[in-house]
């Protein structure tokens, strides 16, 4: 069963806006998705009905707030097929990556050790680790790409050969090339080379689009962010194996994450609370819970099917424009919905500005992947990224806008 996009669009208020009299065509969901009214209602309900703080309250409002917050955790856990005890709420995926960097990498890797990453990582999955490496002196190795924008597993094998790699940080789906990386296979390779090595996956661009089972992936950490999966801003999560969290020292500390505090020191609370210091994102967790419920109702298999069909059509539409080339794989079996493209003779900024003037929202720039840009010998790309509320009727405005940019700017 396909998605009935026209009906579904009605649930996304911003999409009914007009820009200069033109229909808004939102093709920037890889940067941030729209939010359905069900999510807004869930947050509103908290603020208008149960507004209070969580945990330890002895009055009904506080218990309701706790239920909303912890309910968000349970929902996200079942959405990602993970143990709720292993779901730590953070403010975004970036904080989730930092949690891994501070609580595990910085406390375990030393000079002489190595970690493995890739040249296509988002800065969120790159900088926290190279920053740690700068402070601690361990080595960072990078898997390079094949010509069609996939990870070169032969290179990976070579980089793992000496057994020094104790940690892998890899994205599940690239926000620039769209590439879906074989993370389960990489995890197996890493553990074969070093059974004690841990695997951290940046699932930011995967969780909104693919059915994800944390258990089946066989990895140790998995980071997601709410605002790209129909949820609110201000919330993300790190999913981890509970045993691992149990053994780790906390990162942020303060209230709620302690068991006991004396003037001299503290003992830590049980997981996941040990990693959630301070008043949490209560409304946001309620909103994210509603978002994953909404996605579950729609069905993640359908979400992916819609992505495959629409992305294939978009690739075809784009490549049929003269002078347009696409970066990254074109085989839908190994790619998601983010499409970076170049327009010959027109700078991406100008492409984006022209499209914006026609109501078509795309992102231009380095997409927080400067190392990848250097590899591709690019300064920037224009990127169109679709989601469930996009449909083939969005292709014409996109193509028209690009053609207008070509005739306006191409020298």
């Amino acid at each position, binding site marked *: 069963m396909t998605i009935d996009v026209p009906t579904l669009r009605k649930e996304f208020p911003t999409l009914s806006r007009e820009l200069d009299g033109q229909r808004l065509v939102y093709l920037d969901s890889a940067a941030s998705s729209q939010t359905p009214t069900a999510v807004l209602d869930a947050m509103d309900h908290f603020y208008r009905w149960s507004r209070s703080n969580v945990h330890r309250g*002895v009055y009904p409002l506080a218990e309701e707030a706790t239920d909303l917050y912890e309910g968000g955790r349970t929902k996200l856990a079942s959405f990602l097929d993970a143990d709720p005890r292993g779901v730590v709420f953070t403010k975004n995926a970036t904080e989730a990556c930092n949690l891994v960097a501070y609580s595990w990498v910085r406390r375990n890797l030393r000079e002489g050790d190595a970690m493995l990453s890739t040249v296509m990582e988002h800065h969120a999955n790159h900088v926290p680790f190279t920053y740690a490496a700068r402070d601690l002196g361990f080595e960072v190795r990078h898997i390079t790409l094949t010509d069609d924008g996939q990870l070169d597993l032969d290179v990976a094998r070579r980089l793992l050969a000496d057994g020094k790699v104790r940690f892998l940080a890899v994205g599940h789906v690239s926000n620039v090339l769209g590439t879906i990386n074989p993370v389960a296979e990489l995890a197996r390779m890493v553990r074969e080379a070093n059974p004690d090595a841990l695997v951290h996956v940046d699932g930011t661009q995967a969780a909104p689009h693919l059915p994800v089972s944390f258990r089946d992936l066989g990895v140790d950490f998995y980071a997601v962010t709410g605002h790209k999966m129909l949820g609110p801003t201000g919330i993300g999560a790190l999913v981890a194996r509970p045993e691992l969290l149990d053994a780790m020292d906390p990162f942020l500390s303060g209230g709620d994450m302690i*068991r006991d505090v004396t003037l001299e020191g503290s003992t830590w609370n*049980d997981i996941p609370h040990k990693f959630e210091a301070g008043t949490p994102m209560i409304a946001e967790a309620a909103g994210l819970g509603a978002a994953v419920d909404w996605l579950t109702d729609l069905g993640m298999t359908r979400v992916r099917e819609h992505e495959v069909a629409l992305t294939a059509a978009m690739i075809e539409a784009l490549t049929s424009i003269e002078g347009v080339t696409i970066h990254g794989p074109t085989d839908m079996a190994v790619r998601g919905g983010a499409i970076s493209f170049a327009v010959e003779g027109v700078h991406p900024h100008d492409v984006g500005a022209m499209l914006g003037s026609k109501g078509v929202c795309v992102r231009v720039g380095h997409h927080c992947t400067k190392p990848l840009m250097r590899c591709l010998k690019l300064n920037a790309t224009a990127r169109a990224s679709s989601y469930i509320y996009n449909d083939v009727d969005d292709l014409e405005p996109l193509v028209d806008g690009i053609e207008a940019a070509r005739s306006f700017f191409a020298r």
Partner: protein
Amino acid sequence: MMEDLYQEIILDHYRKPHNRAPSLVDEDVHVHHSNPLCGDEMDLRLRVVDDRVDGLVFDGEGCSISQAAASAMTDAVIGREVKDALDLVEDFRRMMHGDDPARPDDLLDGVAFQGVAKFPVRVKCALLGWMAVRDAIQTYERGASAHTVNHEE
């Protein structure tokens, strides 16, 4: 709401606790449990004879629920074989997490606490004495005589 939580049986135990005492003759084990999140503190003393809970007293500070639950617990546990006592503790623990008790008759007044399961913040209070006796028995089985635990469940 007050009625669900504070049943008459519970209030009776709170006002006139059973087996509340600061010491126990020939005690085998003494455990000190506290629930740092609400500040409750409890000392529990156990004497075992022929593998049975022969003597059991508690003392300490806490809210009505924690005091009453500990009192009801002593009634239900004294006289039982230690293995059986552990099984009963587990039954109470499950009841606090929303299950129906498997051994309601053996829990005696303990069943009155079933309604507490609806008040998540008070579950910890009701469990304090029960977790303490479980720990005391396990400490005894390990051959030790004292144990201190900070916990929340």
